[in-house]
């Protein structure tokens, strides 16, 4: 076999020793036969344009027959430079950027960022704000898992549950729209509070969702959980042992499916999660099936949390009473000298945390989302670092795909639940 072809194509396009750009041909050549086509191993390029790469992930697979010998993920096709952008933005201006990283759970990202800045500043939130943020986080978890459920179904060939789950997701999107005016780019939080309180009657809409949503989950459950084909496709595929899961720094459902009982909401609680009554599902084998069951159960638990949060929602202020971070009401800004000064300083300068640094990790749907903020006392962060769960989870993909079949690669990739906006940032 001509190993040269294999060697060439496995290279990422890069600079060689002399600093010249090395180009790797990807298209079909003019000749009828590809060089090395007669070799035993075949290189298949999956993505960045492919139905099952969940965005623009590119996988180069070296196949022997249909068995994967090596899987090399290439990332960076959706790089947006959010972290660098953040260094030129005031803290509240970072929030729209977080919408766009993990765009399947924007509200939870907003909450995470606000919590990180509040930790830096030592701000204690109001009760109502905490409850509303919990609601935002858990709604995000449900919609993110619903997208995961639907797309995994499609990747394994089952199309119908995709539409069922998207119909449920649509209902949450409507609720998000009613709350923030946007369906996807919610920008819900502000440092010290929220951009808006929920509108009148909104709770009833969420209550109705909580009441009816589990029946859809039950339907999907009927379709998948004991389906022989589903079981055959998912059990013992893409297995990560307990040790591997920890060594690869997995988090979220990926980690819990591998029998590691770690949930930031329980282990390092924020937003008073310790006062809510919910269970953390933990898998046993660390395969795709366990990830599926873990996520299904997480949706039910999120539903439980939502119901509890709705019950403890009391009228009250949503923003802290701190003029350093929260704009005064418009009416007062126009009539009261002091309020006007605060308004002016807020708009012109922004929130100014003290010099220092803070790390805030929250349990995002895809894993532990961390925001690490470094402040020098000015209104803009010196460094804003995101710990994106998808990025760290996807790093285990080559390990999981080794020795699997081509179809398994698709299933494994789906089970990791990645969002490329977050992987590439």
């Amino acid at each position, binding site marked *: 076999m001509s*190993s*040269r072809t*294999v*060697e060439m194509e*496995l290279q990422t396009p890069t600079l060689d020793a002399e600093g010249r750009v090395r180009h790797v041909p990807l298209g*079909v*050549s*003019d*000749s*009828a036969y*590809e060089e090395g086509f007669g070799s035993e191993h*075949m290189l*298949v*390029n999956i993505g960045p344009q*492919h*139905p*099952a790469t969940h965005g623009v992930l590119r996988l180069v697979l070296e196949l*022997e027959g*249909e*068995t*994967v*010998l*090596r899987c*090399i993920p290439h990332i960076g096709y959706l790089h947006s430079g959010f972290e660098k952008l953040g260094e030129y933005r005031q803290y509240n201006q970072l929030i729209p950027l977080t919408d766009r990283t993990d765009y399947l759970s924007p509200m939870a990202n907003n909450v995470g960022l606000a919590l990180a800045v509040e930790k830096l500043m030592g701000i204690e939130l109001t009760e109502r704000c905490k409850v509303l943020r919990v609601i935002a986080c858990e709604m995000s978890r449900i919609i993110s898992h619903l997208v995961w459920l639907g797309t995994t*179904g*499609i*990747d*394994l*060939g*089952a*199309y*119908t549950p995709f*539409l*069922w789950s998207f*119909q449920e997701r649509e209902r949450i999107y409507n609720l998000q729209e009613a709350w923030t005016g946007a369906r996807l780019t919610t920008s819900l939080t502000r440092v010290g509070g929220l951009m808006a309180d929920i509108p009148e009657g909104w709770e009833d809409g969420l209550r109705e969702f909580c009441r009816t949503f589990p029946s859809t989950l039950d339907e999907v459950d009927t*379709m*998948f959980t004991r*389906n*022989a*084909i*589903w*079981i*055959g*496709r998912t*059990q*013992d*595929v893409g*297995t990560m042992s307990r040790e591997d899961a920890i060594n690869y720094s997995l988090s979220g459902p990926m980690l819990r499916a591998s029998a590691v009982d770690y949930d930031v909401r329980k282990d390092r609680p924020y937003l008073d999660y310790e006062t809510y009554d919910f269970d953390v599902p933990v898998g046993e084998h660390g395969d795709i099936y366990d990830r599926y069951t873990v996520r299904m159960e997480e949706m039910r638990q999120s539903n439980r949390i939502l119901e509890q949060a709705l019950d403890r929602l009391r009228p009250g202020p949503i923003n802290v009473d701190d003029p350093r971070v929260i704009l005064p009401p418009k009416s007062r800004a126009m009539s009261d000298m002091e309020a006007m000064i605060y308004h002016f300083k807020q708009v012109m300068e922004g929130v100014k945390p003290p010099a220092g640094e803070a790390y805030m990790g929250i349990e995002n749907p895809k894993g532990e989302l961390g925001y690490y903020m470094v402040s020098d006392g000015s209104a803009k962060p010196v460094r804003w670092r995101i710990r994106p769960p998808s990025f760290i989870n996807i790093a285990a993909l080559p390990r999981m795909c*080794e*020795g*699997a*079949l*081509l*179809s*398994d690669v*698709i299933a494994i990739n789906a089970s990791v639940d990645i969002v490329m906006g977050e992987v590439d940032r």
Partner: protein
Amino acid sequence: MTPELKGFLLVSIVKLLVVFTVVMVGVALLTLLERKVSAWMQNRRGPNRAGWAGLLQPAADGLKNILKEETRPGASSRVLFLAAPAMAFIPALMLSAVIPFAAPLRLDFDFTLPLLGRFVHQGMMPMVVADIPAGFLFVLAISSMGIYGIALAGWSSNSKYSLMGGLRASAQMVSYEVAMGMSLIPVLLLTGDVSFSAVIREQQQTLWFVLPLFVSFFVFAVAGLAEINRLPFDLPEAESELTAGYHTEYSAMKFSMFFIAEYANMVTISAMMATLFLGGWDIPFTTWDESGTVLAVLVSHLFFFAKVFSWIFLIMWLRWTLPRFRYDQLMALGWKFMLPVALAYIMVIALALWGMGQLGWTAPGTRAWALTAVSLILGVIILVGLDRGAIVGGSDLRRRRLAAAAARTQLAGRPGAPGMD
């Protein structure tokens, strides 16, 4: 040319035109039906803009596909790339020629046309384009031809996705062809003839074969699904893995021809199902349908249509319900389960028939009921034994991972491939 031959040619041409038109229009409407059925299962409405209830949607799709630009990969093999869609399409249509779609019609005419001469036809006219004695052997032979179109489409595109789709398709269709052929041998044993007319006659006199040959029915149903590449066996075009499998590189009308071939195959397999196991055009509990009147022909045709349609619906229902098999599971199911079951069942039926011959139970009704009892017992055993561990099987990932590790060690010794660990 004798007047009788002319009469035969005349009715044959009329039947040919009717069947061709009905199949083509039916296929077009099936695409609409598929979308409507899926919409119904997914709480949607489906196409409802073109024409009343979307009835003109297939016409719009056809028009669009004719007007679209044809593209061809630069490195494809030109002749085969162009021929492959036709090679997939023609066998699919040829099969509809041998399926009897209604009870025979008593047709007597004798007339003379200017220039063409005298036309004569007398007696029962079978409602089938070609009532050939080879019967379902012809179907098995021709349906295997469909593989060529698909395999060549995959190969000639010179694309890796297409190639893998073509490989999967040929492996899958060849494997299930075997189980399918084996599952039909009990039908042959029971009927003593392979022609469809004889099979239907036997079922009219006794029971529909779905009862006495239940296991064959089951194997044929599964193998049939695999034969036509429909979910859960749609690996050759697994969208999420191979983008579109063997027809990834096809566009416009050539793509449509694969599409039409798929639906035509669906009609054929459903018609085979109806004919071989559900009594064909037979109307149960009456012999009126054999009277040969026009009304009897029409009503029996409706019955045939209903049987075919319900099977097509079941196929669509499965598609929108089930996930897809993996390649190795598919092969394991075909070779390790379907084939042995079909072979064992041939033995069981042959032994049972021989035993009944020894016991003197030669009346067809008695035979059929006795076989029903045997088959249903076997069916229960197989279907209850069809648990997830035994049939679909868990993954043999561990073995494959070891194999990959071994291959990897070899790779490591090879120059090049740096930094890939």
